[in-house]
């Protein structure tokens, strides 16, 4: 089992995205670096649009992740409602 991770620039928008990820992924771990936040999770990590919208207080299109995304690992599955990273081994 290996970790997947996703990393964002640190700003007020990503603060809500990170909170949403932590709420939906109980085994995720936050790693804070200068200007950057990385979230590691064993095997799989999901970003759920509805949770992000709750945190942000506005409508959110998952493709907006592109604006603040720094890097990630794992295979991606993207729909309107969920953005998932996973390893298959």
């Amino acid at each position, binding site marked *: 089992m290996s970790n997947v991770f996703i990393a964002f620039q640190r700003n007020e928008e990503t603060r809500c995205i990170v909170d949403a990820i932590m709420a939906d992924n109980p085994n995720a771990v936050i790693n804070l670096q200068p200007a*950057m936040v990385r979230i590691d999770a064993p095997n799989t990590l999901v970003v759920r649009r509805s949770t992000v919208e709750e945190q942000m207080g506005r409508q959110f299109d998952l493709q907006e992740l592109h604006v603040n995304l*720094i890097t990630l690992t794992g295979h991606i599955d993207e729909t309107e409602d969920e953005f998932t990273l996973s390893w298959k081994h």
Partner: protein
Amino acid sequence: MDMKVNKKLNMKDRYNLMTRDLDWEPSYQKKSDIFPYLEYEGIKIHDWSKFEDPFRLTMDAYWKYQAEKEKKLYAIIDAFNQNNGHLQVTDARYVNALKLFLTGVSPLEYMAHRGFAHVGRQLGGAGPRVACLMQSLDEIRHSQTQIHSMSNYNKFYNGFQNFRHQHDRVWYLSVPKSFFDDAVTAGPFEFMVSIGFAFEYVLTNLLFVPFVSGAAYNGDMAAMAFGFSAQSDEARHMTLGLEMIKFILEQDPDNLPIVQRWIDKWFWRGYRVLTLVAMMMDYMLPKRVMSWKEAWETYAEQNGGALFADLARYGITVPAGWTQACKDKDHISHQAWATFYNYGAAAPFHTWTPSESEMQWLSEKYPDTFDKYYRPRFEHWAKEQKEGKRFYNTTLPMLCQTCQIPMVFTEPDDPTKIAYRESDYSGMKYHFCSDGCKGIFDHEPEKYIQAWMPVHQIYQGNCFTPEADPTAADFNPLAEVLKWYRMEMGKDNLDFEGSQDQKNFKAWRDLATAN
């Protein structure tokens, strides 16, 4: 009147309609004429529609999000420039890391743009063509934003001004240049494996995280902002590379040995180019982020390990040079910095000996190797410098025919011995720094016997300006080469101590904080 609300297309259908469904089967031209490069590499693709676009970005979304990133980035660059942000860096030695980046990396972004534009035309499936065209746009964006970010430094510090001219000529820059020339002159599938996968997935974090975190730790907001802005594009690049690998391997089992060989080759070539980053992290950042060894353990051993565990189900194994690269993590940064210290008169950035406290940090980060193998030379050089005899090596080095780095690497099991490898080909000897580089040559010697090797070209007399007169009594070949490099002697090169950069930075900082 009834308002009929049409159901919106879902993301996957909308993407397909606007990309692959706009493709067509040619009715009056042969497919092999339209796509002439798809067969010669021996890769077999039976069904291009099996390529899964991981990021379903259509052009409208692309422009929207890229425009937003650009506005944010240029606002930061403006603020940085307006605020004399360059005076906030830890100290002016840091600026030399940027000179290394601008001369070595930014031109590669431009070549990536060219390479992806080419494969964006030549690949047989609409899905990968679209993704490659977006990547081609991203890469020229990176080239431009890097140049913009660093242009402010060019107003104040020496060595930035001829980066483009120097990338094609200067001895250490043939290392990154030849790396990318090798990639863009390969076929479309090898290009995708070399750059899309090996560089953009396996190795990318080892280039960007050190430079961008280095910028953040050293007060360089412009480079940091560029870095984060580019990284969000990189996530798309990484997924394209990984998806291409999966797609190629799933199309035909015959593709496996070809792909494995490319992974072996390009891991090694990319790893060799990253030698420059290793030395930057350990020696050029006044405020260090982490050691090269630590970066390698995180981004190569852990992340790379997870990746190759995942690809094992296709029969892919870790690259051939992996074990050696892991052994050498204790050595290459020191060997590289010592090289630039040796040839400090010939590079358009400054070099220096690490201070006692910096050597203390190196000692702690490299407990098995720094004090034993590397401290002695730095202490000796510092002593000589104090006595007014700063060491500059004035004889040209032997280069590796494949990676074109001077032969500075040592045997993996004996760091006191330079590693020498050689091959005989077409009546001549060729020399290499490692089994990895020799293996690459032996597989395709015709590709590498035509290499433009800086040291050999200098001796052939091809590195002088038209005005140079080799018959003149006072002809100084090294000085003439520097003229040809468009390097200003005494300004762009030599030690940081006593440089114009050092004096200016101090004077300006004093001005900013006193009356």
